């Protein structure tokens, strides 16, 4: 057991507006895997997960391999740890667990909220899709969870801004709904 206390990026309680909830997944496990040229299929096979094509996620058991940009995927899940990866992967393996804040936005208005911040059409987003985009002025890895749910990754140091901007967008969406109600 380490003597140093581990702190999540935010350590805040979830907030709900208009039936849609923003929450932090504290201390996520994320490993960036970037296969060397021509090695994507072999790396995928070694991991037991298809290396994801752009904008997709491959999933097996508790682990997910999320497309995270050019020639790179994030291995996310409880078992994702550099120590448990097979030896000699023909890929860069970089532990990114502490580099990102992981948020979830779930509910009937999640798409409307994200439309305030993300320049993507997410109305038809389904589980199995992932995007690199921008959350306002912040970098974003966005994972569609299906049924109005999303997982968002942005820089850990920007967590407070991200939380503030998403919550503000949620409150505005809720205020608009109150008008039509």
């Amino acid at each position, binding site marked *: 057991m380490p003597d140093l206390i581990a702190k999540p990026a935010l350590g805040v309680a979830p907030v709900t507006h208009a039936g849609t909830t923003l929450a932090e997944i504290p201390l996520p496990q994320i490993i960036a895997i*970037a296969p060397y040229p021509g090695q994507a299929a072999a790396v995928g096979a070694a991991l037991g997960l298809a290396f994801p094509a752009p904008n997709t996620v491959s999933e097996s058991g508790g682990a997910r391999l999320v497309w995270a940009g050019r020639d790179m995927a994030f291995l996310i899940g409880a078992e994702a740890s550099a120590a448990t990866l097979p030896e000699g992967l023909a890929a*860069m393996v970089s532990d990114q667990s*502490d*580099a990102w804040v992981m948020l979830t936005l779930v509910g009937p208005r999640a798409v409307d909220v994200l439309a305030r911040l993300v320049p993507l059409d997410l109305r038809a987003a389904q589980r199995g899709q992932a995007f690199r985009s921008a959350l306002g002025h912040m970098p974003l890895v966005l994972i569609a969870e299906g049924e109005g749910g999303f997982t968002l990754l942005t820089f850990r140091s920007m967590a407070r801004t991200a939380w503030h901007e998403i919550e*503000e967008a949620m409150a505005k969406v809720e*205020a608009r709904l109150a008008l039509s109600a």
Partner: protein
Amino acid sequence: MRIDGKGRIDRTRPVTFRFDGRSYAGYRGDTLASALIANDVRVVGRSFKYHRPRGILTAGPEEPNALVEVVGPANQTPNTRATVQELFEGLVARSQNRWPSLGFDLLEVNDLAAPFLSAGFYYKTFMWPRRFWEGLYEPLIRRAAGLGRLSGKHDEGLYEKAWAHCDLLVIGAGPAGLMAALVAARAGADVILCDESAEPGGRLLADEGMIDGAPAAEWVARVLAELADLPNVRLMRRTTVTGVYDDSTFGALERVGLHRSPRPNLPRECFWRIVAKRSVLAAGALERGIAFQDNDRPGVMMASALATYLNRYGVVPGKRVALFANNDSVRATARSLMAAGVEVAAILDSRPDAPDEPGIVVHKGAVVQRARGRMGLREISFTKDGRAQRLEVECLGLSGGWNPSVHLTCHLNGRPRWSEDLAAFVPMEGAVPGMLVAGAAGGSFSTHGCLASGAEAARASLEALGRAAGAVELPRAEDAPYVIAPLWAVAGKGRAWLDFANDVTVKDVALAAQEGFRSVEHMKRYTTQGMAPDQGKSSNVAALAVLADATGRGIAETGTTTFRPPYTPVSIAAMGAGGRGAGFAPQRFLTSDQASRDRGAPMVEAGLWYRPSYFPKPGETTWREACDREVRMVRESVGVTDVSTLGKIDIQGPDAARFLDLVYTNTFSTLPVGKVRYGLMLREDGHVLDDGTCARLGDQHWLMTTTTAAAGLVMRHLDFVSQAFCAGWQVRFASVTEGWAQFAIAGPKARALVASALGHAPDLPFMGCAPVTVQGVAGRLFRISFSGEEGYELAVPTRYGEALFRDLTARAETMGGGLYGMEALNVLRIEKGFITHAEIHGRITAFDIGMEKMVSAKKDCIGKAAAARPGMTGPARAQLVGLKPLTDSVITAGAHLFAQGVDLVREQSAGYVTSVGYSPTLHSHLALAFLDNGRARHGETVRLVDRLRGVDVLCTVTDPVFHDPKGEKLRA
């Protein structure tokens, strides 16, 4: 005056509002303009230049006269169009550009001075003496001429920005837009229908037309009900599409909360960016006036506005009305007015062959010569068959024809085409990729024409989208031809207004032509026609027709000015929603942030990060005291500072060493595992990009460190080099800046502090690195120094950052050390002559900073060839030096250096200061500077001059390394 039984307002919901301090009553569904008309308020503003009393001219977004200030609890919004502003309980509005009051405005004296205030008067009248322009004339003119006032405070209101995507964007929900949306929606397309009004329907609600044998409003209601039931349609009310941009992206402004009293979290406006695969422009047409003497008197109004006020709002601006037109469109309005019990004195039709109108006096071939009634129309005079006659009326409806709203088709550089038949500009085909124009915006003025062209535009759009339109049955509607005989201005004496908003008359345009401003673009700028907030919506076609006449050319040949976004005014607050104050950029916080703030450290922003400037102690009154103490602490004991902001890039792969050899000037492939090397990186053009250390963590595993400011820049550069030059290489990298919290520990007691934190003495040579376990956490230890003292940097995963920071702080303090901030860090590095981006500012070569030997001769690197170009090295270049003032004087960064005895002129500047600080170690102010041929000038005295801050000090030129030049301390 309100007309019983007319209008679409909700008479069960009365609303009170204030205008110019007086309380009035209206109804839900009114605009401010319709409510003012209902209350017989005739004068609503003063004109821009002459301060003439003005009334409401239109019923739409094109309004040039009725601009008011809307005053809310937290906002004061000037130039709000009363014709657009919806009424709500408690609305407070004020008229503009008058003093002391709307009824009595002292600056109306301008109207008497009109002969001296013609077009371009300020170019002629206020030329001499020249120096009076800025101090006297311009402020005077600005005070006299004007619009609304800003509050001078921040706009604390909430605004919003949002994105929307669709297959088909339909702009405008009149007959053409509704039909287009309906056809596309029924075919299953994903449709957004935008309408600027609160209630869609366009002129179908404003005129009393019939569709399928029933009032058109019933058809509108049926279509809206069907659209509301379809899940693939989004109807955006109160949303004006304001601009067309690349890649079929549209800007649109939605009035979300402006039509009601403020509510928590409800945005006032939302600026939408709509990405549409296809679009249909169904923005309708705007009616234009006819110029004659004093045609701007309150009570003179567009005929179509009269119809709108009567049929939508149940109000009329006078009991006795006349209509003046050059086309048939006023006839229906006349019939509506009569049916509502308003007396229509006559229709004055300029066409000698105009048709008769049963039950109404029609003066054929008649033109209005003059309107009378300064504070409200009393009488018009007109001529018919050469005979002058007078008519007492309170209101005159004007129709000089219709201008299709072609604006959006011009935003990507399309030029509209002149149609002789319509006497109007119509859109150029294909002006906006993917956009089709339907209805009046495309020149189809009949209801049938609108419905048919809307359906056809939808069908063609669906085809382009790969969808089939179902069978379309067009509803039956009138299909009267549009018959017009152009009439722009009635010849005669006096001033006849074209542009009401900017007070531009027929004479002004003629004067511009006479003075040589014959191009329409020149005329516009000389007269200011079309340059007011209304952008000349109701005036510019008439103005250029007058210009065409004055220059003896045709209208097509004269052309039109360029329509640019936005179509109607957009609040900057909406476009910049969320960006005020701290919202401007993301804030990046260190894990040590709270601990630093707890100690009272003022935070400074660097690369979006917030870093502690210094840590004040009780009794310290200035930042300098704290800074000096912290510097001495590091030099004498031990200091801890958070350096997590430095960029960190994880680089891996069999070709990683080769890649580093390419991006750094010096060689890295020879570096053993467990060692760190300082590296310099050049841009392709040979100038210094960044500097930093790079550690070899394993045979194929490296950790590059960048400066805080250039972390993103270096990452982008590596991406570029890797993709452009090394695509097949076995190397990959990722930023881990955010993943590690890293703390510098520096000073004679640094080793002891690290030993205390790790539980054992660190066994690391200078520029060594090793994995360590810090209180049970896997971390990394580097022996590097940015202070010149023995220094370590200890890194742990970010989640442990705060805990380690507090731990190190406590340990340091028990040893007589403590925290140091950015100010002390800066002094420490200046004492050592270490550079930052103050020095490597983009115009600096490796030679300039004395590092040309770091550019390896044995290998190539990015920027090496370019750095060898003539002029990139040599004595003519300014080179990095140190400066020490001869006396104990403050010196400043940004100051320029001069040889002693030369004139202090730009040409004599021999260099400039980049960094300064007070060194408590050397008891002197110190500077780093660039001086022409500086390395050969150590020991010389130069004059340091900062004219902005009044600094003029003699300094000795020295080596840039002031402290421990041999580096004995850091290698200890």
